[in-house]
C-alpha cells in the first residue's frame, strides 16, 4: 500500500509540475510562442533557448508549454462535455425505458466506430479548428460514458429504497437527481479521467495528421508533425514535445489506474478487473 502511495504522489507531482510549468512558462522564459526570428532558426538547445528553436526561430520551450496548455484545455473541455452529456444520457436511459431503446441504439452505433477514425472523419468534414476537435472528440467519447453510467444506474434502480421512494410518490426527476445521481458519481469520475487522457492522445494524433489544431497554434501533435519534417537535422524538435506527451499521459494513466482501484475496490481480484481495464485499454486506440 505504501508503495502505491509513493507512486501516486510521485506521478501526481509530475503532473502538477507539468501543469505549473506550462501555465507559468512566461516566468521562466522571455520569449513569445508566436514571434518569428529568422536569424536564429533551428538552433540546438542552449542557455537562452532551453529546448532550442524551431524552423521559424520560435523558442521551443515556450511553444511546448503553450502546446501542453492547449492539449490540457482540449482534454478538459472534452472530458467536461462528454462527461455531462454521457451522465445525462446514461441516467435518462436507465430510468425511462422507451428512451433507452432509442438512445442506446444510437450509442451502440457510435461505439462501433474506431474512435480516432470517427474523429478524423468529423474534423475532416467540418474543417480543422479547436472547436471542431472538441466537438468531434466529445461525440466520440459520449457513448462509453453513457454506457457505464446507465449500467451503474440500472443496478441502483433495482434496489429496494428506490421502490420505497416510488411508493411514497417521489417524482422521477427527484429520484434521478437526488438518488440515482449520487450513486453513479464514482464510476463517472473514473470514466471522465480516462476520457481526459485518451482525448489528449487522440487530439495529438489528429493534429499530427494535420486535421486537428491548426498552425500556428502549437499543440503536442502538430509540434511533432513539424519535428518530423526536420528529423534529420533537428532532433530537439521531436524530442521535447515527445517527452512532454509521454510524461503527461503516463502520469494521467497511472493516476487514473489508482483512482479506478480506489473507486472499485471490490473488483480488485484478478483477472476480472484486469480484463475490464485491459478491454478498455484496447478500445482506446
Amino acid at each position, binding site marked *: 500500500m505504501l508503495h502505491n502511495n509513493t507512486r501516486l504522489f510521485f506521478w501526481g507531482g509530475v503532473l502538477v509540475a507539468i501543469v505549473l510549468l506550462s501555465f507559468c512558462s512566461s516566468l521562466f522564459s522571455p520569449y513569445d510562442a508566436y514571434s518569428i526570428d529568422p536569424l536564429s532558426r533551428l538552433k540546438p538547445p542552449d542557455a537562452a533557448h532551453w529546448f532550442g528553436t524551431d524552423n521559424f526561430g520560435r523558442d521551443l520551450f515556450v511553444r511546448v508549454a503553450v502546446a501542453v496548455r492547449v492539449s490540457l484545455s482540449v482534454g478538459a473541455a472534452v472530458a467536461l462535455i462528454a462527461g455531462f452529456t454521457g451522465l445525462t444520457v446514461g441516467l435518462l436511459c436507465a430510468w425511462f425505458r422507451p428512451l433507452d431503446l432509442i438512445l442506446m*441504439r*444510437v450509442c*451502440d*452505433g*457510435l461505439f*462501433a*466506430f*474506431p*474512435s*480516432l*477514425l*470517427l474523429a*478524423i*472523419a*468529423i474534423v*475532416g*468534414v*467540418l*474543417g480543422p479548428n479547436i472547436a471542431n476537435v472538441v466537438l468531434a472528440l466529445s461525440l466520440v467519447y459520449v457513448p462509453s460514458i453513457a454506457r457505464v453510467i446507465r449500467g451503474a444506474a440500472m443496478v441502483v434502480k433495482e434496489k429496494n429504497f428506490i421502490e420505497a421512494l416510488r411508493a411514497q410518490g417521489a417524482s422521477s426527476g427527484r429520484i434521478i437527481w437526488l438518488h440515482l445521481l449520487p450513486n453513479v458519481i464514482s464510476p463517472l469520475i473514473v470514466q471522465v479521467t480516462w476520457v481526459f487522457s485518451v482525448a489528449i*492522445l487522440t487530439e*495529438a*494524433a489528429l493534429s*499530427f*495528421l*494535420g*486535421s486537428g489544431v491548426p498552425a500556428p497554434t502549437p499543440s503536442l501533435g502538430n509540434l*511533432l508533425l513539424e*519535428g*518530423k519534417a526536420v*528529423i*534529420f537535422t533537428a*532532433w530537439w524538435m*521531436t524530442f521535447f514535445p*515527445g517527452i512532454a*506527451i*509521454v510524461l503527461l*499521459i*503516463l502520469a494521467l*494513466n*497511472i493516476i487514473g489506474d489508482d483512482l479506478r482501484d480506489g473507486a472499485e475496490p471490490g473488483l480488485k481480484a*484478478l*483477472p476480472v478487473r*484486469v*480484463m475490464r481495464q*485491459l*478491454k478498455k*485499454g*484496447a*478500445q*482506446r*486506440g
Partner: protein
Amino acid sequence: MKWFLFHRLMALLPVLFVVSLVVFCLVHLAPGDPVLVILGNDASPQDIATLRQQMGLDQPLLAQFVRWFGAVISGDLGHSLFLNASVTDLFMQHLAPTMSLALYALAIALTFGLAGGVVSAWQHGRLADRVIRSLATFGMSVPGFLLGLFLIFVFAVRLRWFPVVGYRSTNDDGLLNLWYLTLPAIALGFRIAALISRMTRAVMLDVLQENYINTARAKGVPESLVLLRHTLKNALIPVLTICGESFASLVTGTIVIESVFGIPGIGSLIVDSIERRDFTVIQGVVLLITVCYVLINLLVDVLSYLADPRLSVEGSEN
C-alpha cells in the same frame, strides 16, 4: 451454436443501420455545397443545377438517404469526387499495404506479448517481471506515431539499418517488403504487445494458483510444461479477445503510422481524401472499415465460443 450466431447477427442489424446513418449524416454536416467544391466557385448557375440534379442533391434528405442506403446494400459506395475511380476500387487498391502492415504488427505483438507475459509470470516479482511490466506501462502511454519517429531517428537516421520511409510491394520482393515494414510494424504493434503481455501475465498468475497446477507439479511435470501447456493455454482466450479488439487500434494506428512512414495504404487514402475534401471517399472508407471492425468482433466472439463453450452461458445473458 445456431442460436448464438443468430442472436449475435440480429444484434448487429441496428448497429449497422445507425453506423450507416451516422456516416450519411457526416457528409451532410459539411459546411459548403459539395457541388461548389467540385465545380469551383465561378461555375454557372445552370451547371450547378444540372450537377445537383445528377447527384440527387435536389431531393429531400430522407429520399437521398434511402437512395444511398439502397446503393450501399447492393455494394455500390459511389464514385470519388476527384479521382476517376469507384470508392470500392480505391479501397481495394490501398488495402494490401495496410493488411500486410497490420498482420505483421499483430504477429510482432503476439510473439513479444506472449513471451513477455510468460516470462513475467514465471519470474513473478523479480527483476525481469518488473522490467517487462514497466515496459508494458510505458508502451500503453506512448502514442504509436511518437514511437515511430523515435524508431526512425535511431534505426534509420543514425544506425541506417532500415529505410527511413517508403513501401515496396510484395510483388516486387517479399523480403524487401518485410524490411520496409519492420519499423512501422514495431511502432504499431508495441501497444498491443503491452496489452497482451499484461493480460497473459494476469491470467497466468491466476491459473498458477489452481489446484491442478499443484497436482501437475506433484506428478513431476517439468516446470516448462506446467507453464506452457497447463497454464498458457488458459490465457489464450482472453488474448484472442484482445486481438479482436486490437483491430480498432490497428486500423486507427495504421492511419497515423502510414503517414509517419509514407506507406500508401488505407490511412493515406483517408488523409489524402480529407485534404482533397473528397467526401464520398471519406464516407465509403469509414463505413467499410467500421463494418469490418464489427464483423471481426463477431468472428472473435464466435471463435471464443468455439474455444470455450462455457462462455456461451454468459453470451446468452448479454
